């Protein structure tokens, strides 16, 4: 049996180009991994993590479990295309074996089996049925994809990604592959007979209504078309968003081996960046999109621009880094870390002389094993400071006040802007200060500081607590008593505290000890950003205010009489946007000390 026909050439070329490109990319990326990452890879490969990764590949890359969670219809669309196509290939393979036994069949022989199988008289209706069913499933996915273009809301998406030209070519090819296959197979069946419930019925219809000569004339071109579509798609795949189809698989493995984006851009980032399918799920959660109509800076566009080396500073900088999109990304890409290390690449200018003025500076006061770092912003919310003072006094805690008279910034704002090396100087200064004063516990009221103390400072021997955690601990230890005076509170999760440090329950527990807690519409992992995030240096004051107003409206809808938050920046910002009084968690506690 001959498994070659001229129409196979586009497919064969496409498949070859794709294979070479994929192998080259993956080999190069792994080759260039930082030494530490390579070590992680080697040490993880023969562990149970690899098996877990296989499971995750099936559930995510094929079944798209996480997208199902976002929206079942959207999940079905992705799964039908990915898993359906996967099954088409697998079942097609089995079909070949069923017909021909175990023998070598070239790739095009499997793919265009229907074409080459016309000489086989025997029919296995089970496969006809199966293959038609799978084709139908995939076609339904394609239909949904078309539908999504027209009406994305049905799939829970208000906005869809604006694609670049290459993506559109690949997308068009992809859309045509399966209808083309249906047509080609139906024509083949119309001439040679056979086919399942789908191709079979279409072929009988064609045989009845279309002249034989026309069918014969269309026969070869239809296979050519099908092959060409496959070829185009395969050539475009490594260079378009469809790269994600394969890239998610190594990504899942590497992530299981604990590889992550680093402070500086690294080869690993390629796996994350090219695993983005540009599904656009990150668009809707973005408040820059929903409140300000800014529609070219979201993670999907950021990753796309970075991938094609056309990232602009204005795009990299225009992000609140609130983490809402990251929490929803079906591929689990570390969007904030990637944006962070892009900023580093664009803005980090090491300067040894910078912040030389920090040397030998110490404006701290008091003595105690517990250190309190108010943070720059907290100095502008003195009620928080005095509340903390009362709480410390009530608990009988001796406190070392790190920065009540003005200290040195924790370094996170500078790091967020990409000036990583300079930020380290401030971190080093503060770290030395903490050690110098022999504290064992460091309490801060500012989630921005908290985040960097925990993630970057590596404060061995010092426990770092947010004041919400600290207050709750004091209450549970019985060192701090509050009267449950009642009152209706609602709570705003600061991005850096909630999504950033995973602290959701502690402040809630504290509030519930005082009064009733009413949750706003968006809360916990889904909470909205106040808009004043230090990560964004692009949007102006009016834009910040618009975000603040829209997110504050949710607090008013809860019926609460006070908005509580636990970040000085959020407090100031929400207070601008809301008509309700806004208090820091510590104020609420201090007001209700028993």
């Amino acid at each position, binding site marked *: 049996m001959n498994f070659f026909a001229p129409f196979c050439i586009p497919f064969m070329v496409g498949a070859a180009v794709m294979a070479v490109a994929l192998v080259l990319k993956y080999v190069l990326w792994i080759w260039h991994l930082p030494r530490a990452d390579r070590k992680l890879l080697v040490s993880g490969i023969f562990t149970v993590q690899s098996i877990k990764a296989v499971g995750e590949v099936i559930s995510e890359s094929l079944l798209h479990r996480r997208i199902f969670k976002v929206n079942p219809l959207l999940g079905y669309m992705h799964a039908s295309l990915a898993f359906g196509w996967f099954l088409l290939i697998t079942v097609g393979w089995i079909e070949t074996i069923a017909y021909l036994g175990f023998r070598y069949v070239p790739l095009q022989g499997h793919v265009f089996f229907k074409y080459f199988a016309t000489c086989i008289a025997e029919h296995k209706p089970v496969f006809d049925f199966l293959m038609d069913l799978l084709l139908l499933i995939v076609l339904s996915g394609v239909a949904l994809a078309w539908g999504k273009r027209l009406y994305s809301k049905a799939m829970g998406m208000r906005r869809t990604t604006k694609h670049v030209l290459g993506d559109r070519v690949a997308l068009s090819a992809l859309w045509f592959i399966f209808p083309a296959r249906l047509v080609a197979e139906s024509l083949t069946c119309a001439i040679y007979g056979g086919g399942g419930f789908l191709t079979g019925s279409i072929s009988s219809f064609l045989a009845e209504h279309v002249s034989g000569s026309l069918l014969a004339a269309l026969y070869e071109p239809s296979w050519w078309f099908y092959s060409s579509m496959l070829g185009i798609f395969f050539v475009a795949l490594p260079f378009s968003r469809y790269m994600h189809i394969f890239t998610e698989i190594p990504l899942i493995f590497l992530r299981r081996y604990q590889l992550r984006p680093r402070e500086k851009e690294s080869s690993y980032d390629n796996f994350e960046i090219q695993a983005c399918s540009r599904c656009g799920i990150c668009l809707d959660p973005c408040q820059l999109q929903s409140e300000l109509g800014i529609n070219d800076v979201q993670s999907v566009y950021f990753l796309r621009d970075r991938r094609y080396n056309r990232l602009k*500073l204005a795009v990299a*900088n225009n992000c609140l880094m609130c983490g809402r999109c990251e929490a929803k990304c079906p591929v689990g890409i570390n969007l904030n870390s990637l944006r962070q290390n892009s900023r580093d690449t*664009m*803005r980090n*200018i090491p*300067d040894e002389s*910078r*912040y030389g*003025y*920090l040397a030998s*500076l110490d404006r701290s006061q008091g003595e105690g094993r517990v250190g309190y770092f108010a943070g*720059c*912003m907290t*100095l*502008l919310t003195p009620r928080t400071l005095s509340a903390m003072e009362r709480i410390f006094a009530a608990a009988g805690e001796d406190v070392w006040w790190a920065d009540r008279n*003005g*200290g*040195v*910034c924790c*370094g996170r*704002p*500078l790091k967020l*802007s990409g*000036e990583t090396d*300079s930020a380290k100087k*401030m971190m080093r200064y503060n770290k030395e200060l903490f050690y110098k004063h022999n504290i064992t516990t460091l309490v801060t009221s500012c989630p921005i500081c908290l985040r960097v103390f925990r993630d970057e400072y590596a404060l061995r021997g010092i426990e770092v607590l947010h004041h919400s955690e600290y207050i709750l601990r004091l209450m549970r230890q019985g060192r701090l008593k509050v009267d449950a005076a009642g009152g209706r509170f609602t709570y705003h999760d600061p991005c850096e505290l909630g999504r950033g440090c995973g602290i959701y329950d502690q402040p809630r527990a504290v509030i519930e000890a005082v009064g009733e807690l009413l949750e706003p519409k968006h809360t916990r992992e889904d909470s909205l950003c106040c808009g*004043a995030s*230090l990560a964004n*240096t*692009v*949007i*102006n*004051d*009016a834009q910040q205010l618009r975000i603040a107003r829209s997110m504050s409206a949710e607090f008013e809808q809860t019926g609460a009489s006070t908005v509580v938050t636990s970040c000085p*920046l959020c407090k*100031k910002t929400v207070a601008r946007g809301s008509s309700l009084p806004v208090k820091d968690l510590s104020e609420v506690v201090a007001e209700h000390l028993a």
Partner: protein
Amino acid sequence: MAAIDWGFSINRPRTIDIDNNNLRKSDEILREMPELQCCIGCGACTASCTAGNLTEFNFRKVHTLVRRGEYQGAYEEMNKCMLCGKCRLLCPRGINTRGVVMLIKRKLGDF
């Protein structure tokens, strides 16, 4: 040839010479961030400044000089800023002060 010690040198003028200053970068900065022109010199930024309370750094003065085309030393001054963002919370004219710091550094540092 004999060496003569004058005991003094000619003082350089302190005058801001708008005619001879190169205002190209200043214009670019104002074009990118027109709100900077709204500064009314209240000094709240400088009063609250974390870095300004530890050094001579005066954000208001430095950006005003930059607007007048006096770039000498401005980059180094802006580098004293810790970007902590207190000033942005205080500016009565709502100027994106952190953005200004970054913009001036970018323009004067040519990156």
